[in-house]
């Protein structure tokens, strides 16, 4: 038997490599290396979360005076705060529509590039560029685009002879949320497109090739072959998108500030207003909103995962 065929025996631990292997490292070394990251995590993530839960059950008065109020904040929130429910409705609507468009739109754009449509390299850059821009910049650009007098949207309508459809897009409750949603999609579709494109390129070529040999039409290929193989990616993007939309703040804050007449108020903008714009230092009530919303998001994510889960492992 040649020496290479011998079953390998566990090698004697080399002291130098033991130091590098975290599983065998000395406790002191582990602590020294982990402590900074753990401290940062504890200080900037764990403590704020715990403190928010604590605040939710208290009224925070100035000078550090804290008064325990039990479930009062939650009772007010649920039964005596119509603005909160308006914000919940807006957020839910925004989340459902934007998540659906994000995933379906991203997939369609990716398929377009995957099929090597004309100008595909250029389109990939054009579609992805908005992802690199900050929400503030995107918000300002779209506020200009929607401006009644000099905005691109109304200018295009005028040019097409459709002046009757001119709108104050962000100034009317019936169009404001939709207008913000369009801006949001303009920014985010490119991200989903890139993720889907990467997943499409990772699909086994022999399966797709076999489908083509079997004269499988493009729609059947999409529905019966590509979509099932992209299931994990779709579920991951759905969950990520859902969480992001439930917490939407920046774009709405820049474009409408929650107006007109609370028609674009979301839970996040409402929390901010209650915390910083109501001439009060009480962080108890806004914390209660944040906690309740956290629980709702968690519950929805759990439900989505349960419904869509097979043997896939979600990665987020």
């Amino acid at each position, binding site marked *: 038997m040649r020496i290479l065929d011998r079953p390998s025996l566990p090698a004697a631990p080399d*002291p*130098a490599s*033991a*130091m590098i292997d975290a599983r065998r490292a*000395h406790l*002191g*070394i582990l602590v*020294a*290396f982990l*402590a*900074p990251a753990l*401290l*940062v995590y504890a200080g900037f993530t764990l403590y704020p979360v715990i403190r928010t839960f604590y605040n939710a059950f208290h009224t*925070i008065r*100035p*000078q*550090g005076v804290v008064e325990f109020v039990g479930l009062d904040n939650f009772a007010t929130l649920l039964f005596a705060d119509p*603005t909160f429910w308006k914000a919940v409705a807006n957020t839910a609507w925004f989340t459902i529509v934007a998540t659906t468009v994000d995933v379906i739109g991203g997939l369609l754009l990716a398929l377009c590039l995957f099929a090597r449509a004309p100008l595909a390299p250029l389109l990939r850059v054009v579609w992805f560029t908005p992802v690199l821009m900050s929400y503030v910049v995107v918000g300002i650009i779209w*506020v200009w685009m*929607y*401006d*009644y*007098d000099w*905005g691109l949207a109304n200018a295009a309508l005028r040019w097409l002879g459709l002046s009757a459809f001119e709108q*104050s897009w*962000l*100034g*009317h*409750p019936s169009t404001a949320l939709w207008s913000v949603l369009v801006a949001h999609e303009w920014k985010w579709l490119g991200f989903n497109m890139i993720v889907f494109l990467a997943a499409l390129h990772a699909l086994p070529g022999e399966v797709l090739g076999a489908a083509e040999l079997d004269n499988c039409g493009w729609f059947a290929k999409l529905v019966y072959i590509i979509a099932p193989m992209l299931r994990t990616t779709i579920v991951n993007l759905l969950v990520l998108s859902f969480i992001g939309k439930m917490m939407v703040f920046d774009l709405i804050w820049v474009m409408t*500030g929650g*107006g*007109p*007449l*609370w028609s674009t108020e979301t839970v996040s903008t409402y929390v901010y*207003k209650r*915390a*910083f*714009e*109501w*001439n*009060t*230092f009480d962080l108890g009530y806004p914390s209660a909103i944040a906690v309740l919303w956290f629980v709702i998001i968690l519950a929805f994510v759990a439900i989505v995962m349960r419904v869509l889960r097979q043997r896939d492992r979600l990665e987020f």
Partner: protein
Amino acid sequence: MHACFATRYVAAVGLVAFAVLLGAVPKASAEDVTIEVWSHEADEPAKVAFRELAVKNFEKSHPGTKVKITWYEKNPLGAALKTALPAGKGPDVFYVEPDQTEYITAGYIVPLDDLVNWNNIEPWARKVWTHNGKTYGIPQEAYTVELYYNKDLLKKLGVALPPNAQFTQAQFLDLVKKARAAGMTPISQGVGDRPYPGAYITVEALLRKLGPDDYQKLFTGKLSFADPRVVEVLKWVKELADAGAYPKNFMTLKLGESHYYFYSKPGALMLPMGSFYTGRAFVPEDKGGQPQTFPLGIMQFPAMDRGACNECKTSTIGASFAINAASKQKKLAGEFLDAMSTPAMGKMWIETVYLQTGIKADVKNFSGPYAAYFTELMERQKGEKYFIGQPRDMVTGECKDAFAQVVNSGFPGGLLSVDQTVQMMNKACFKA
């Protein structure tokens, strides 16, 4: 031996990294004293120059002391203060406006009665910051709410300003209709980034109709918005809005943009605005300022039919400064506030910011390119009865939010009827 060394070496590196992360930073030397100031209005060059000159003067008269101003936009400044102050942190001195009374009730700013020289401050301006017999802010900027207009456009419409510069409410409505018929935007105004400009016409009309006492009661929850006089005013404002008084982009037009809209593109007949208008308008034209030849005029807000106080006018304090209760250098901070409030600085404020001030300043004759403006502004103050403060100084919480969404935006924007406005404001503000 080798492994042992390596272990110690790695542990040492880890500990050093840990120590750096914990913030082992060099300490300032004992003699360095720095006054931290957080200020708004970085976008107004004259105010920046004014405050930086005060810093220079103060540092010259206080060797070894430095003043560091950090410039913020208004909303981020408020958010930063609301997290810093409860934690016992924040700057020594910060920008504040009179509607931010929560700092006083919370005890986060100290009374300035014994910390600054009040001989240099106008008593009426000090009064704005006086709560329960104590004064909490140095009033730097004062302003009145004015109705600016374009003299040439008014002439073009064939309308002459009455001798007292005040139209009746019917004449004003006619003026708006005439302007719209002539293809002009009657009133440049926008609520894109502020919770108050859209309310100017409504609240000034309410002040004149109700008189100061009932006006105050209305915004402190003691008078119903269903009061017949209030409803009468709202109906008149509704007529204005329906006649197309405001620009179509009213909801998204920002404060600075509404100024530009008025004096440049596309141009408008009138602009209701605090006299702080000059801060942005009286800068060189290539920096977005008003053209030198712009025919700027000032008229009084219209007189209301059976108005209780048609000679009433809103005057208030804007930019002010307060001292953080957690500051360890309150005396020095007070001396810095004094350095910003000398009569010479007051004079400089008027001559360079082109705006009223709460600082006593001996400026009798105006000169320079804006002398005519100041003469007209002073003319419009003659015989007026001042109501000190604005609704946004009086409302808090839910009422403040409703004021911003309803009176400031939804109602003048034509989204709400009078009945809806009354109902929404009463629900949020009226404490029967």
